[in-house]
C-alpha cells in the first residue's frame, strides 16, 4: 500500500518537475511546478509529518505558485511562449545531470543507508512547537524579521516610480 503510494508520488513529482522546466508555455510550467510542490507535500505525509505537509501546501502551492502565476501574467505574451535556451548547452546540461545523478546515486547506494528502516513511532508535532518556542526562539524572531524585511523590500523594488499619483486617465 505504502509502496504503491510512494511510486505514484515519485512519478508525479519527478514528471511534473521535468514538465515545469520543459513545457513551452510558462503558465503550464508554473502548473507543473505546483504538481512538484504538491508531490513533495505528499512525501511529507508518507513520512508521518502532517504539519510540515500542510505548511508546504499553504506556503508553496497556495502562495508561491500563485505569485509566480501573477508574475508570468505581467510578462509580454511573446516571451511567455518563447523557449530561451542554447541547443548546445542543452546536451551539456543533460550530460551534467546524468553524471551528477549517477555519481551521487552510486555514493548513496554504496553507503550504509540502504538498510535503514525504522519501527519507532513518528515525532509528535507538539514537539515541533516546543522546539520553536524554547530552543529556537531567537531563530523564530529572526525569521519573522527577515520575512517582514523581504516583503517590504519586494514592494519597494517593484514600485513604479514613473507613475503619477492620482486616478488613471488611460
Amino acid at each position: 500500500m505504502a509502496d504503491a503510494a510512494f511510486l505514484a508520488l515519485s512519478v508525479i513529482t519527478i514528471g511534473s518537475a521535468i514538465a515545469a522546466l520543459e513545457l513551452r508555455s510558462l503558465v503550464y510550467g508554473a502548473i507543473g511546478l505546483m504538481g512538484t510542490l504538491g508531490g513533495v507535500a505528499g512525501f511529507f505525509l508518507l513520512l508521518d509529518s502532517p504539519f510540515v505537509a500542510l505548511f508546504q501546501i499553504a506556503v508553496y502551492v497556495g502562495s508561491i505558485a500563485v505569485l509566480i502565476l501573477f508574475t508570468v501574467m505581467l510578462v509580454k505574451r511573446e516571451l511567455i511562449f518563447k523557449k530561451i535556451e542554447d541547443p548546445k548547452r542543452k546536451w551539456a546540461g543533460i550530460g551534467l545531470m546524468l553524471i551528477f545523478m549517477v555519481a551521487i546515486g552510486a555514493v548513496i547506494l554504496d553507503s550504509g543507508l540502504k538498510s535503514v528502516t525504522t519501527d519507532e513511532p513518528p515525532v509528535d508535532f507538539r514537539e515541533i512547537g516546543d522546539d520553536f518556542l524554547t530552543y529556537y526562539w531567537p531563530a523564530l524572531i529572526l525569521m519573522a524579521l527577515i520575512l517582514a524585511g523581504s516583503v517590504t523590500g519586494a514592494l519597494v523594488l517593484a514600485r513604479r516610480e514613473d507613475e503619477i499619483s492620482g486616478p488613471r486617465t488611460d
Partner: protein
Amino acid sequence: MGLELINFVIVSVALLGIGIYGLSVKRNAIRMLFAIEIIINAANLNLVAFGRFIPHSGGQTLALFSISIAAAEVAVGLSLIIVAYRMYQNIDIADFRSLKG
C-alpha cells in the same frame, strides 16, 4: 510499513539533478527560479526524511524554517525579475548586461 530511507534520498537526488539541469541550461529568468524552487524542495525532503528515521523533531523544525525563508526568497526574486523586465523589456538573462564589466 515498508518505507525505507534510501527511496526518499534517491527521489531527492533526482530532483536535485533536474534542478541543476534547469539552472545550467535555461536562460529564462522565471524558469531559473523554478529550478531553484525544485532544488530547495529536494533539500527539504531530505531534512524531513532523515528526521523521520532518526527519529528527532529537529528535521521538521529545520524544514519549516527552510520553507519560510524560501518564501521570502521567491518574493524578492520575482520583484527583481519584474524590475529587470521593466528595464530591458525581456526576461532572457543574457540580456541583463549592465552589471557586466
